[in-house]
């Protein structure tokens, strides 16, 4: 294969607006053999290039159980994401990866799973959720708790509806601030914990979202009896190479791009720099 830092070309197949500033892209490697061969763990990420603008890391939002295409959900935040927003179906981008450790799906088998997402934190969980739902019999109860600042900032609205309609999945959604027409729960994500039957002894909790939400949620889960190693989250830092060489994403001696981005709370607690 070519060098560690040289991307392969992929084509944008189609795109879906999630919120006013967030869009999901479906991509496929231009090389068919590579597209079919590409395998990953949910929770891993890609380095996506918009040629001329640069490269940035995005989590794989699709499930490895669905081969051939890859999905990423991107919020416009900076140089690369602005340039990406100007592209559309048929345009080409560069991809490197998969990078990082990903969620350990095998270790999750047989456990009850609680997914706790906030805002743009749902995409890394989405790949894991589809992976779990595609092999539903291997797992215990599946609970999805999701919150965003306002109803229009909820991502994957269609899929949340689809998951909620299933008998074997429990979905609860909340928003910080209601908008006209919203009849659901209002409040921060932890308010949803009282609406479901959490089983701290048998559950694994996957928490992704903005840092402030993660810290509230983790404190709440600990208070409800979750062991630190049963709380699993993803960490982010500024990244350049994604392969543990450039040193931008280090926390102490941990490289978030190689040792992470997935860590359980016991590991997170032991980090320092």
């Amino acid at each position, binding site marked *: 294969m*070519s*060098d*560690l*830092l*040289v*991307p*392969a*070309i992929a084509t944008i197949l189609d795109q879906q607006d999630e919120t006013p500033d967030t869009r999901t892209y479906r991509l496929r490697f*231009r090389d068919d053999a590579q597209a079919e061969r590409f395998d990953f763990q949910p929770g891993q990420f890609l380095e996506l*290039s918009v*040629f*001329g*603008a*640069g*490269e*940035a890391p995005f989590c794989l939002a699709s499930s490895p159980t669905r081969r051939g295409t890859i999905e990423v959900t991107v919020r416009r*935040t*900076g*140089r690369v*994401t602005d340039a990406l927003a100007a592209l559309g179906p*048929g345009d*080409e981008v*560069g991809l490197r990866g998969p990078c990082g450790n990903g969620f350990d799906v095998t270790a999750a088998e047989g456990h009850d799973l609680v997914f706790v997402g906030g805002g743009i934190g749902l995409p890394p969980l989405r790949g894991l959720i589809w992976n779990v739902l595609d092999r539903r019999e291997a797992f215990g109860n599946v609970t999805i708790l999701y919150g965003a600042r306002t109803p229009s900032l909820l991502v994957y609205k269609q899929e949340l509806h689809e998951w909620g309609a299933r008998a074997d999945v429990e979905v609860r959604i909340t928003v910080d601030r209601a908008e006209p027409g919203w009849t659901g729960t209002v409040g921060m994500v932890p308010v949803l914990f009282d609406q479901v039957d959490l089983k701290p002894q048998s559950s694994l909790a996957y928490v992704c979202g903005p*840092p402030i939400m993660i810290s509230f949620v983790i404190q709440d889960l600990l208070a409800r009896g979750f062991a630190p190693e049963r709380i699993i989250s993803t960490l*982010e*830092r*500024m990244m*350049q*190479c994604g*392969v*543990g*060489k*450039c*040193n*931008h994403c*280090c*926390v*102490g*001696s941990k490289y978030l791009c*190689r040792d992470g981005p997935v860590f359980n709370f016991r590991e997170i607690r032991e980090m*320092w*720099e």
Partner: protein
Amino acid sequence: MEVADCRTIARGDLNAWVTRLLGRAEVIAPVRGQGGDEVFASIAAPEEVLWSFRNPLLPPKHLLLPQTDTLAEFRRVDGHYQVQEPPPPRPKILLNARSCDAVGLAFLAEMHAQDLTDAAVLRRAEALTVVSLACHQPCPLGFCVCCDAGPFLEHDFDLQLTDLGDRFHAEPGTPKGQALLDLAPDLFQVADAAAAEQRFALEQQALASFGKETCHFGAAMRRISTRRVAEDLWEKMSPWCLECGGCNHACPTCYCFSVADRTENGCTTRCRMWDSCQYAEFTLEASGHNPRPKRADRMKRRFYHKVSAQYFQRDGRVGCVGCGRCVQVCMGTTDMPAVVGAIRRGNWVSGRPA
């Protein structure tokens, strides 16, 4: 290295040997640059090579990690991107690298080989033959003896030369180094016992010449690795750092980089470029969040990476070869020996000690 493999070459024959090296590869050596400074540069003739010199201010790390390093070029043809990777590196010989720099290059090659392999860097390392010139005496600011990086080397060189006066002692460390001896069997003689003894005596003399200019890594490492450096020590030191990044750029072992695209005439070139962990934007995220907002945080990071036991375990050595370049370039005196000394003593004395 077996003693039997060692050779000697008369001083008067060095130019003839270098001429043969030039016929085989590009030769980079310390030369007298414009303005009179010693610098590493490609040579065209053997007379340019300096055999006695002050170690150049910039190390030869650019031979493995160019300051701006093209990763690939992307051209759009009929709506489709074509990826063009740079050509493979040409063979190069680095002549008269000091021991510290030879160790620095070996460290960088090792860094890019471990875990995920960075083939571009390793191809360069493979194409490079390092001929080191052992040091008879400590350089004014050097403390290589504290870093297992000199004044003489046991490994990390392809060929090690020692200046014996009227002749040079040459010990091959790898087949690549041996190949340079094989280029000139008529110029090299099997080293006699006198040459071996003289080389050994020079090494002992060099080791004995290191005085107080040492860097007490052990004590600093214990403190850094166990979070026993007082937070306010970094705060006290940080105003002295000017955030120029000079320590990083002049360091033979610093390898942090950033990646950026540049587009010209429809061709996008992607480069990796040296970066500095001391720059405020090194960890700045697109959201505006910066996990190391204070200069003290960044200084702490630099010395954690270089001197902690955690990194020692990972890399097999401290991130320092004792070349003293950071002492030379730092205008704020927050160089390696000064900071390590401050950590060991537990207090910061501003300014260079007399």
